[in-house]
């Protein structure tokens, strides 16, 4: 490995590292605009100039220069200082000085770096260039005069999102970044270009002029829009969450987040349940907590009680409900709202065993009944990375655009029993084969894919290539806590419980529970609340500290960003208070006590981090049959929070349903 000297300090750098990376290893900060560690190297901003010996007697762009043995690098010589000042002066020639009205102000790379590396003044007194605004869709607001042409957004769209709709047109001084013919960018990851943009050219449209970064309280938590468990930071001011940003976690989301993760937060202040409701004469009427609890007590359910959870619920709520039901003498727990009834006797058989990061290293991938781009966009980007390394991808299911080329075998699960020759060949020679089964394929293909795990030898030393992809953030936690009946929700309905708790469950067919007294504990006035007999206002993911298990079995915990609105309370406290009224007082008074009890009940939830499940698949009928229909019909409107979000509604209308908003913008 090459040993280089950075400002006189020797460092050993990995083979293939660049001079810029060597400087970072030595603890030196190198200013940069176009270089980004997760994108290809462009080398066009020239901000990262350093002096390198041996080499030509001029500053060199460190991001594009490989570090070589015995190199001497200087990052603070007069030549470097001059070069940086010069580059900065050129960059600022056409950059408007509109920081006071720019949303990037306070978190702007150009602002920070001109302060640290620029001259104090400009010598330029000609006219500045102006560029017209470009329309890029409902998420990205553009002020293109501010653009410094770093091309990060172009490279992101091409390399990570896989949607080659952003590009640079014209040339020289006239070069402009634009989306193709100024149509909305049809990517579910487009919001990431806002974070990538080092200046204020691309900013967030829903967040425009909302707040300054230094006014915001930043809370680290976990996203619940899909089962990936994206690590996010919620920026809030007062009682409102203003934006969600991804936090770097290389094992989960790298540093990306889907548009739904970022922009569904404006749904957190709309259609909220902020007081209890009790149904009187067929209508829901606002009530006090005592009245609501009394109405539930009046049911006198005994042990005839069930709990069904929705997609966004944290483990603490689930455990509190489980404990309440256990003390009442029932174990009718279910979380698969839409009626799925796959076998859960072995969690390894319904888990994403390869892990999200491991997906990158796979060399043969078979997708069974999953529209990955919508069910888990950030797993989809990992598959794009695997393809770049040479992986072959096959897919069974209705054809969709996954942003990469997959060989579509057809939409028939019986194909699993007789895979075409080319698939067999690819898997035979594969060292790290991988099958990803979508929730939609579990009904007709769970046994068949488990049989494939054996015949294709998916589980081998240090590698488990059998994966089930869940789409609900609460799913894996729910399964670990035992929220599953053998026959799915049909078993619960068949038991005809007197009292049924719906924990944020909105997708249930409530007509099956006509005989039950329905209690909805949740945060949004959506389908679940409309069908309930008593509504108890709970907290959304931003308003409680919760534990979530993502699709690969990673236990993660988030903090509370804001307080729930009005009379709403954290869900576990509601269940705790209700338990006292019902005469089955739960044995915990604080969140810590609850977590301790939950850790005893389910040891895997006692600690954070990735949990692996022993591979002992159940023996199921190995014949696959039936066609797949993807469960997500509209990526932007999958849960109660998104449905309440104006941004998500507009994304859905514009990007998926082709409604034209371009003229109405600004």
């Amino acid at each position, binding site marked *: 490995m090459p040993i280089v000297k950075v400002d006189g300090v020797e460092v050993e750098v990995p083979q293939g590292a660049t001079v810029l990376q060597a400087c970072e290893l030595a603890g030196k900060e190198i200013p940069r605009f176009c270089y980004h560690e997760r994108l290809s190297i462009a080398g066009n901003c020239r901000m990262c100039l350093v002096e390198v010996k041996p080499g030509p007697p001029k500053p060199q762009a460190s991001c594009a220069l490989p570090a070589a043995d015995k190199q001497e690098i200087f990052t603070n010589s007069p030549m470097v200082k001059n070069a940086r000042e010069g580059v900065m002066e050129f960059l600022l020639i056409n950059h408007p000085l509109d920081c006071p009205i720019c949303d990037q102000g306070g978190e702007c790379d150009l602002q920070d770096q001109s302060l640290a590396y620029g001259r104090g003044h400009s010598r330029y007194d000609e006219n500045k260039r102006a560029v017209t605004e470009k329309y890029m869709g409902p998420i990205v607001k553009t002020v293109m005069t501010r653009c410094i042409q770093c091309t990060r957004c172009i490279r992101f769209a091409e390399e990570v999102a896989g949607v*080659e709709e952003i590009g640079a047109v014209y040339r020289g001084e*006239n070069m402009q970044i634009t989306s*193709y013919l100024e149509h909305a960018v049809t990517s579910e990851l487009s919001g990431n270009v806002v974070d990538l943009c080092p200046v204020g050219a691309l900013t967030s449209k829903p967040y425009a002029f909302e707040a300054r970064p230094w006014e915001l309280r930043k809370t680290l938590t976990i996203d619940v829009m899909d089962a990936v468990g994206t690590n996010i930071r919620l920026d809030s001011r007062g009682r409102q969450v203003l934006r969600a940003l991804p936090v770097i976690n290389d094992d989960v989301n790298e540093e990306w987040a889907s548009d739904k993760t970022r922009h569904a937060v404006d749904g957190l202040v709309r259609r909220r349940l902020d007081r209890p409701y009790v149904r009187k004469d067929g209508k829901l009427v606002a009530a006090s907590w005592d009245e609501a609890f009394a109405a539930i007590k009046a049911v006198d359910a005994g042990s005839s009680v069930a709990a069904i959870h929705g997609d966004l619920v944290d483990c603490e709520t689930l455990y509190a409900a489980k404990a309440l039901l256990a003390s009442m003498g029932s174990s009718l727990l279910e979380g698969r709202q839409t009626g799925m009834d796959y076998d859960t006797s072995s969690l390894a058989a319904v888990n994403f065993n390869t892990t999200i990061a491991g997906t990158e290293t796979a060399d043969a991938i078979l997708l069974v009944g999953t529209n990955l781009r919508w069910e888990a966009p950030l797993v989809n980007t990992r598959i794009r990375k695997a393809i770049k390394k040479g992986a072959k991808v096959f897919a069974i299911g209705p054809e969709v655009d996954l942003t990469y080329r997959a060989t579509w075998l057809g939409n028939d699960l019986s194909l699993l029993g007789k895979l075409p020759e080319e698939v067999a060949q690819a898997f035979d020679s594969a060292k790290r084969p991988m099958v990803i089964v979508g929730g939609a394929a579990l009904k007709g293909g769970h046994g068949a894919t488990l049989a494939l795990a054996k015949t294709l030898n998916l589980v081998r030393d240090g590698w488990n290539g059998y994966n089930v992809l869940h789409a609900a953030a609460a799913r894996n936690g729910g399964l670990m806590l035992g929220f599953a009946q053998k026959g799915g929700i049909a078993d619960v309905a068949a038991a005809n419980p007197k009292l049924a708790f719906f924990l944020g469950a909105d997708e249930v067919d409530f007509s099956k529970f006509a005989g039950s007294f329905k209690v909805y504990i949740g945060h949004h006035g959506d389908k679940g609340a409309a069908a309930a007999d008593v509504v108890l206002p709970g907290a959304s993911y931003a308003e409680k500290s919760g534990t979530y298990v993502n699709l690969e079995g990673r236990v993660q915990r988030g903090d509370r960003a804001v307080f729930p609105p009005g009379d709403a309370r954290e869900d576990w406290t509601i269940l705790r208070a209700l338990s006292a009224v019902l005469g089955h007082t739960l044995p915990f008074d604080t969140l810590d006590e609850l977590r301790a009890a939950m850790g005893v009940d389910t040891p895997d939830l006692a600690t954070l981090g990735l949990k692996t499940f022993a591979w002992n698949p159940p023996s199921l009928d190995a014949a696959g049959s039936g066609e797949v229909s993807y469960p997500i019909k509209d990526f932007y409107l999958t849960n109660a929070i998104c449905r309440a979000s104006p941004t998500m509604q507009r994304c859905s209308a514009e990007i998926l349903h082709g409604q034209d908003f371009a003229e109405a913008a600004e």
Partner: protein
Amino acid sequence: MADAPKIPDEAETRARWGAFAWTPENQAKADEILARYPKGREQSASIPFLDLAQRQVGAETQTQGWLPVPVIEYVARQIGVPYMRVFEVATFYTMFNLAPVGKYHVQVCGTTPCLLGGSDDVLAACKNKGLSKGHTTPDGLFTLTEVECLGACANAPMVQINDDNFEDLDYDKTTALLEALAEGRAVTPGSQTGRRDSCPAGGPTSLKQMVDENHDYRGEWAS
């Protein structure tokens, strides 16, 4: 920015050019072009395809040709490349016209050697013939563009009209050239003063014996 072409209305060009496809002759040419590049490198054919498409549009409209958006998209589909990537190429090179041009696209070089050689006179001649920068004359004959160096500096000033260079111009020669084109008379490309290629104006000043035949100067070198 002011000089950036205004891309014509999308709906109209789609109606007019949406059904664009190679003519049989151009199809043969396109196949031949595509065969030059290895499989998986079809993107390399972007520029020759755009050129071919512009010529076909030119033949259809009796002009030098231009590239309507649907034609650019057709080219992109032919080589299996996202529209944006071909659109970028088409906007980058000045020989691709993004707006309709006249029958003769007069590109006057205004870069330093031509400017010193008198390109202002050439432009003045164009202006007096009714041409104005960035516009097509009402009769649809001429479109005038001022461009940067076209690489004929030894013969400055020069203009490029469609595929031909006309060099060693002055005010009168430019006027005569435009009149000849307008009347449909034959014109001779190249130097308008009659010199061959970029030979020195007024005859050679050195290596004079090399003009007609090869000559061995080595015996005459001072040792």
